[in-house]
């Protein structure tokens, strides 16, 4: 690694990209995680590690992160870094709440998308047309989004029942939910998974709990959001427009020289990015809380961005990242003591990683993993509860760790964050 330290940073790292992890590998990883979780659940008695309640909460918490991450993906795939996702998400919460309060949940969602898209449009104008640094524009939009929401609340929500300068009146009604038939008792069918979960059988009940969490009381909006992940994949890698948009993020010069309208592609990507952030915001309002509250996004825009990086700028990886963060959040909400069990889970996972590293003769990596595993094991055995202050930043520290360990192998779009001016090709 020392050879690249002083060298131009981007070039040597660019060559080695992960070009997607195969389906078999995903399956194997999921299986290992499931077995480990079951084991920890059985030994520590922290039943909420795999309960349907935790998983259900995790799903609801993962969706806004994942949507924000998809937002990030749309922007960065066309080469625009969108650190303003948080601000666009705030606009989504405010507009979502306004629409929900005035006309009901689905209009609220539409309004939230619109609010976020306006933020995206602003970012596109500033970065694409005016060529301002993407980070600077994003930070400014975050400030503006927060300011606008505060101002609008002061003017519009103040004086209405339940509303004020920092909070909206409650929305009209909610988006309905459904249980999946056969599996989780929808349409009057027997609740197969529910009955399996009750027995606390090793592995089987855990699997049932997880599946039931994903299939019971699911909001239609959640379903829509989850479907956006494969839809995004198909769009970018299977359609004409998707290819053109990706080309703008990889090599705008090449794209322009073939007549691809670079600015238009960037505008589309960034506006859709904002719309998705707005959808994420309105999801928080409509499904999560039924009202707007200042600070409601709580940095989820940034976490979404982190999930996207975690996922190596791909929809599948991004969804995995969002699930991880959602799970950590959900567990903490459901059962604080279960978080303590998670320490053992991490220790065991690290042991497996160490063993794998030894088999691949990567001894330094093995040693580090083993040492950290021991630290987690000690922490697990010497304490009974993880302080809530520390639990609250689990996703953030996970992000840092993942970036520190894997950033050398990540492969962002080649022209990501590079300002581009029309007519420079050639």
């Amino acid at each position, binding site marked *: 690694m020392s050879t690249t330290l002083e060298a*131009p940073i981007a070039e040597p790292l660019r060559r080695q990209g992960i070009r997607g992890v195969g389906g078999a590998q995903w399956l194997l990883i999921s299986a290992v995680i499931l077995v480990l979780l079951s084991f920890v659940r059985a030994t520590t008695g922290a039943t909420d590690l795999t309960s349907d309640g935790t998983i259900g909460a995790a799903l609801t918490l993962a969706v806004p992160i994942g949507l924000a991450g998809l937002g990030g993906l749309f922007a960065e795939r066309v080469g625009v870094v969108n650190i303003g996702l948080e601000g666009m998400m705030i606009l989504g919460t405010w507009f979502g709440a306004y629409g929900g309060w005035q006309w009901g949940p689905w209009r609220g969602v539409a309004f939230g998308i619109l609010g976020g898209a306006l933020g995206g449009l602003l970012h596109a104008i*500033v970065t694409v047309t005016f060529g301002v640094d993407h980070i600077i524009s994003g930070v*400014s939009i975050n400030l503006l989004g927060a300011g606008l929401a505060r101002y609008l609340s002061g*003017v519009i929500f103040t004086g209405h029942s339940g509303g004020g300068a920092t909070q909206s009146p409650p929305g009209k009604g909610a988006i309905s939910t459904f249980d999946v038939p056969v599996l989780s008792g929808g349409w009057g069918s027997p609740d197969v998974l529910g009955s399996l979960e009750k027995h606390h059988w090793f592995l089987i009940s855990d699997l049932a709990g997880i599946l039931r969490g994903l299939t019971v009381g699911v909001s239609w909006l959640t379903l829509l959001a989850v479907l956006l992940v494969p839809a995004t994949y198909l769009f970018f890698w299977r359609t004409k427009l998707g290819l053109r948009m990706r080309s703008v993020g990889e090599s705008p010069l090449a794209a322009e020289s073939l007549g691809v309208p670079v600015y238009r592609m960037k505008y589309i990507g960034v506006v859709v990015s904002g719309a998705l952030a707005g959808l994420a915001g309105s999801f928080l309002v409509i499904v999560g809380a039924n009202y707007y509250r200042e600070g409601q996004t709580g940095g989820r825009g940034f976490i979404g961005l982190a999930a996207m990086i975690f996922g190596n700028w791909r929809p599948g990886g991004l969804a995995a990242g969002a699930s991880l963060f959602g799970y950590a959040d959900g567990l903490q909400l459901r059962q604080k003591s279960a978080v303590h069990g998670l320490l053992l889970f991490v220790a065991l996972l690290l042991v497996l990683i160490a063993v794998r590293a030894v088999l691949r003769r990567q001894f330094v990596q093995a040693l580090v993993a083993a040492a950290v595993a021991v630290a987690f094991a000690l922490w697990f055995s010497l304490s009974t509860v993880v302080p809530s202050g520390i*639990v609250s930043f689990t996703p953030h520290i996970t992000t840092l760790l993942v970036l*520190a360990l894997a*950033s050398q192998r990540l492969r962002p779009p080649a022209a990501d964050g590079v300002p581009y001016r029309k007519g420079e090709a050639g």
Partner: protein
Amino acid sequence: MTGAPMPVRKPRSVDLAGLGYNVAALVLAIGVAVVIGGLAVELSGHNAISAYRLMLRYAACNQADSSTPCTADSVIDIINRAVPYYLSALAVAIGFRMALFNIGVEGQYRLAAVAAAIAGVEIHLPAVLQVPLMIIIAMAVGAIWAGIAAVLKVTRGVSEVISTIMLNYIALGLISFILSSYLSGNNTDSNNLSIATPDLPSASQMPGFNRLLHDLGLLGSHPDQVPGFLLVAAIIGTVFYFVVERSRFGFDLRASGLNPFAAQAGGVSSARMIVITMLISGALAGLVGLPYLMGQAYSYSSEFPANLGFNGIAVALLGRNKPIGIAFAAVLWGFLERSAQILDLNGIPQEIYVLMQGSIVLAVVVAYEIVRRAKVRRAEREVARQVPEALGGAVEVTA
């Protein structure tokens, strides 16, 4: 290719013209914000002109109407608001000058303030030692927290934008953990349920300038102090200017920001520059919470002002990352916040100041970019006019 080269001395007035461009950009941006703010006032059913008049009078006089005599309370309040913004913006600006984005000032100043608050209570030294010690502790904590991002960037290639944002949230969690453990071991008053550190003893407090100014006959009596950190900020601003604009370190810093590859080829170690700059940025960030902690509130609590770091980014952008510009921008920020307070009393939502701040930043970054392009075009034309053969056999512009 004939004729002797003509090393024509570039007249100084060119720099003045450059300054003129920047001022024009600033005026334009503020103009945009004034229009947006005015529209917002009008939309809420009030007269924009009278609202602005109200704000100006209140800021200058601390009075809403001209029947009562002026006091300096508003001005003192604006200074108290501006000083933390100034420090925060300097912390951001030193990173910006080398294209390093410290978005983590927010977490750095809060963590530093907690450390200083606890140190100020736990350590008992005379004030002459205690106050500098607290400042040093705060700067060290800020520097360490920023240093994590620097190390991650240099050794693992992690973008400082993401890592400092993550570190902000980690800092918040850590603060709640530190406070709860510290207070649970320290809280003798079982009735005290609020989360706040004990008040600082007088040796840990930063004196203000009111007494001095009063004795000089410049100031009457006021509830709020002219902050002692005003002097600290002025000194740091001056040092900032000379280090960044005139020193060899500053040259390395700016070169790394303009073109990191050329800087490396010229012998500037980018890793070293990243670490040093991030540490300085963090140390400056460590100061941001101190004026409030040591001069106003005397304890760290859940009411401790938030968003000083994020606003610092805005103030730095507005001030073009230069100490003088930042001073102006910080005062503007303080002015908007203070003067907007009078609006609520007149039925106008005071939140328009947040809207104005947001639109100023966005307008100004666009305006500066337009100005930059105009300057490039002007420089090219200028060179072509003065020395037509500067473009040599090349009649094609590649810049």
